[in-house]
């Protein structure tokens, strides 16, 4: 029991993922700044933002559903922490003794987005509701593609749904991305991660220039700090998930530590570059993108994987 609480609160959970995700969020902002020929924020910027938001006044809109509005961001953080535990424990080679984690992770990764939607709907602001409905449509778009990716991964790993075994298979036979189907899956999963992180081609739900922050519009002070924390954690968790299912996971001996960190930074770098070189899509375009193209790619990858490519 104490071990489980330690997992949740300290090591792969809240503290570790919060700090690691904060650093990655600095990395993302710094790269964005360099792409735009700017200097960019200092290293500790995410922590300054977090502490400042914690110290600020929290406003509850007068026509909001008070309890739900306050609890939704906490639910988002809890979901993000749980998914980080389930992904990073196998990622670090610690066995949780649980064999169906791929399916659980799929559901847990959806919790933060759902929590934002609940919070936005509870805030009673029409523009936040607009953001929530956009986010819902986006979820409907990308979840099927992600599910197809996971199906292909299960097929490639020889019908196992345990992340530990998926990593073990990759460390024996080389990472999945080395095959043609693996590359297709990598493209699809990167796009899903981009949409889950709500980064630019898919930041439809919190488009600042159109709907002034969308789903996050009414959050302030403590609630906004929790939203930020959940976002930091997701910025660590989702790229690690891609590394675990396609790039062979992490390893912690000798030179492999460097490779593991580089893999993670490489994935984040790719996400940031996509984010900085694309305009925002409309909701219809992004649904079409996932429903037609990404699903097509994923199905081709499944067929290829079935024939062993």
């Amino acid at each position: 029991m104490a071990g489980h609480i330690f997992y949740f609160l300290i090591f792969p959970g809240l503290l570790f993922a919060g700090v690691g995700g904060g650093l990655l969020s600095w990395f993302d902002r710094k790269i964005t700044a360099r792409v735009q020929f700017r200097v960019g924020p200092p290293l500790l910027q995410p922590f300054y933002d977090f502490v400042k938001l914690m110290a600020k006044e929290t406003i509850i809109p007068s026509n909001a559903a008070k309890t739900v509005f306050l609890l939704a961001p906490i639910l988002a953080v809890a979901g993000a922490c749980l998914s980080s535990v389930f992904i990073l424990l196998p990622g670090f080679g610690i066995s949780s003794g649980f064999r169906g984690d791929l399916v659980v992770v799929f559901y847990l990764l959806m919790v933060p987005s759902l929590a934002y939607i609940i919070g936005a709907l509870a805030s009673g602001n029409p523009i936040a509701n607009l953001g929530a409905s956009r986010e819902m449509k986006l979820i409907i778009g990308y979840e099927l593609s992600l599910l197809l990716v996971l199906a292909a991964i299960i097929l490639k790993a020889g019908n196992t749904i345990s992340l530990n075994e998926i990593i073990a298979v990759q460390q024996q036979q080389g990472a999945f991305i080395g095959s043609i189907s693996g590359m297709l899956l990598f493209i699809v999963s990167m796009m899903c991660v981009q949409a889950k992180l709500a980064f630019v081609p898919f930041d439809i739900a919190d488009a600042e220039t159109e709907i002034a922050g969308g789903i996050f519009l009414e959050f302030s002070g403590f609630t906004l700090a929790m939203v930020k924390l959940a976002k930091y954690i997701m910025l660590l968790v989702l790229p690690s998930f891609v590394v675990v299912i396609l790039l062979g996971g992490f390893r912690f001996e000798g030179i492999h530590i460097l490779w593991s960190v580089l893999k993670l930074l490489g994935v984040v770098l790719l996400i940031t570059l996509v984010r900085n070189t694309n305009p925002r899509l409309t909701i219809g375009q992004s649904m079409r993108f996932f429903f037609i193209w990404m699903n097509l790619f994923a199905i081709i990858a499944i067929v290829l994987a079935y024939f062993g490519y």
Partner: protein
Amino acid sequence: MGIKSYCFKKSLWLYHFAGASCNNCDIEVLDCLTPRYDVERFGMLLIGSVRHADVLLVAGSINKKCKSRLLEVYHQAPKPLVVVAIGACGITGGVFAEGNTFAGPVDKIIPVDVYIPGCPPKPEAILAGIVNFLNKS
């Protein structure tokens, strides 16, 4: 200096309220975000919702129509909040001061912390104003 106020100074998020300005001041505010001036290196960000704001930038003169809106935006923002009046119009009324729709310089309506004069002030002047305020308080 406590950690709270230190972090507050390191991470100011700006909300831009454009009154009945001639729009030059608004353009100069946007200039601060360009690669040449890059306010993000001080942790400042331009945000879209006043609920996230730490700094309320008021540019332009305030007329009878926007007075009530300015008050509403001010009350919607979470405190602590720094109010900055930008340009001659915000501070005194400037060229609009004699107009019959003019509803008063900004500091008659809400308390102002920083005044940045100029018509329009240069981006350097806006940055210098905010940095001076931070060093003083």
